[in-house]
């Protein structure tokens, strides 16, 4: 079976998706990154391999997400793509009519505006991570419940409380204040969802022409409370596609499929065996000028595979670029 692999290594979660020749999803996995992008990429490879038939032939690999360059070196990527393009391509594959994509992940949130199947504008959070997955996780923990319970219980709210959502830290203090006043947990949960949706639309969505169909994806789209609050605030239906949490990886796989069809060369994929290699990462401070850049490097058996992180190109070394 010919297949294409997309790997999305984000700040909080690592996602892998495998598509067959007909661009159907045949395997996927969603794992916490836990600050270990290399190990989680390797673990993800082991997981998808188990889901795939023996005769699978990986004809192309693409990496995306904030650790896309690192993951690209590890697996031997044919394509390294930014997460904005990957998400747009993934969503459009399932909903070609989509005009707005809202993506909220572990630490960043994006909005992508699409007209006639083409990305015309996008935005990404810059100054504030309010409303992203990490914050919601943290608040669920504080309320002593799982993120799944957070999602369910927020729907039972009858009179949501008002919470100041301009800043996550203030949202948190405001939320604690409401708890001390004796408000119901459900009402606080949904109030928080509303505050975060307002924050998202006022920051990331500022000045963007949000038109239906609206697609909502990324890990936070699991949260029913946020979905409901988004629909209310936008006054329009919000579609959460199946496999929304791995949509970036699916988009990357679709992109590399297209890329490989137009290419004479075979895939640079190093094989599933890379999940068994021991990688060594380290960093040092470059002393060549007063910038004192922190250079990170990746090595196997003492041999340096890639280096990056400088302001100039002095140390820049990456086999994929």
């Amino acid at each position, binding site marked *: 079976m010919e297949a294409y692999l997309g790997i999305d290594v984000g700040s909080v979660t690592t996602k892998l998706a495998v598509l067959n020749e007909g661009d159907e999803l045949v395997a996927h996995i969603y794992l916490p990154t836990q600050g270990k992008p290399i190990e989680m990429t390797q673990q993800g490879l082991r997981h998808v391999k188990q889901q795939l038939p023996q005769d699978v032939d990986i004809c192309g690999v693409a990496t995306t997400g*904030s650790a896309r360059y690192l993951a690209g070196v590890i697996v031997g990527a044919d394509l390294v*793509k*930014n*997460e*904005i*393009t990957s998400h747009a391509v993934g969503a459009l594959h399932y909903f070609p009519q989509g005009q707005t994509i809202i993506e909220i992940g572990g630490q960043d949130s994006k909005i992508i505006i699409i007209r*006639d*199947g*083409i*990305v*015309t*504008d*996008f935005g*990404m959070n*810059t*100054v504030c991570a309010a409303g992203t997955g990490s914050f919601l996780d943290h608040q669920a923990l504080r309320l002593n419940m799982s993120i799944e319970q957070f999602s369910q219980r927020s729907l039972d709210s009858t009179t949501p409380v008002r919470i100041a959502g301009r800043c996550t830290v203030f949202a948190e203090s405001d939320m604690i204040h409401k708890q001390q006043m004796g408000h119901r947990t459900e009402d606080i949960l949904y109030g928080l969802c509303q505050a975060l949706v307002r924050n998202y639309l006022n920051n990331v969505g500022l*000045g963007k022409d949000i038109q239906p169909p609206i697609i909502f994806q990324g890990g936070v789209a699991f949260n029913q409370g946020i979905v409901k609050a988004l629909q209310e605030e936008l006054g329009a239906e919000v579609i959460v596609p199946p496999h929304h949490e791995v949509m970036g990886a699916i988009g990357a796989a679709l992109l590399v499929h297209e890329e490989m069809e137009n290419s004479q060369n075979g895939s640079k994929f190093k094989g599933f065996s890379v999940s068994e290699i021991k990688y060594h990462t380290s960093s040092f401070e470059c002393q060549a*000028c*007063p*910038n*004192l850049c922190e250079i990170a490097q990746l090595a196997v058996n003492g041999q340096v595979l890639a280096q990056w992180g400088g*302001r100039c*190109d002095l140390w820049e070394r990456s086999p994929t670029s």
Partner: protein
Amino acid sequence: MRIGMPHMGNLYIPFKALFQRLNIDFVIPPVNNQRTLSLGVRYSPEGMCIPFKLTMGNLIEAAELGADTLLMPAGSGICRLGYYAKTQEQILQDLGYNAQILCLGVSQRKLFGLLEMIKRLSNNAPWSKIISAFRFGLAKLNAMDRIERVVQKVRPVERIKGTANKLFAQAIKAIDQADDYNTVKRVQIDYLDQLNQVTKDSKAQPLVVGITGEFYVLLEPFSNLDIEKELGKLGVEVRRTTFISEWTKFSLFLNPLGMNEKDRIHKAALPYLKRDIGGDGWESVGEKVLHAKEYDGLIHLAPFTCMPEIVAQNIMPSTKENIPVLTILCDEQLGKPGMLTRLEAFVDLLEHRRRATSNRLRRVHGSLSGH
């Protein structure tokens, strides 16, 4: 008296040439680096823009090298920049440096104001010598900008990535070291020639992206995280709307004669913005309207907290001259990975847009020939 001044791109080179010719004692602070930024951020009010903070760092580093007379651009009616020199002088004094700031005002008396200031600094050198030194500095400035324009075109299409950057760095060094007018000319010709001979991908049709916005962040690569080089790596041809040599030509020589290069830009902006809003905000809007046809997209650079550019930012996406605009706010918090992700996505957007447009044209042609 020892002169020092802040950096903006390679502007120190023409000034160095001018000062050396007139035997003026001067120091050049280290080019912008992490220490400059840290110093600037530490001693500047928090809400100030990145041009203030970096120039503050430069002035402190110049004072550390013994400069007691610091030149700082200023002017009336432009933006907060008008009072930067005074504020910075106060900060330097609070830090214990006994330095005086001279305002390099070019907004009022144009060329004559500047020449008179040079005359004072040079301890009353004869006018002939001042004018000759001034011309020498200008020659260096013009040579650097001419080479840079070609570098911008070579970067996206060179076969071996980084060749143009390397040649540009060598050219800047050679121009800096040239000690007479003819050497400057020769260096210019030599490097333009070398750039033309760089092996290029002849089939490449690079995307053309304009870069406009606030003067300082456009011209100081440290403040915009080398955005032009990064775009070059992505295979994009950059057209920057501002070059210091052009600006000098107009603001010092042609504007006093009644020729204003900005009239055309302001006129283009008129349907959307009818007046000057300070800084370069009016120009940013005008440049977008003016170049919408020749650029595939536009990157708008603005310092964080810059009021004029924030006004421009909100006007630019909605003009009827419809090209994609990406605004990047520059300050000490701007991170390179975040900026690169946005640039990559912006370039993808422009490529898809170009492909869709050419497909549509092909379909129109196809249906026409079918009839």
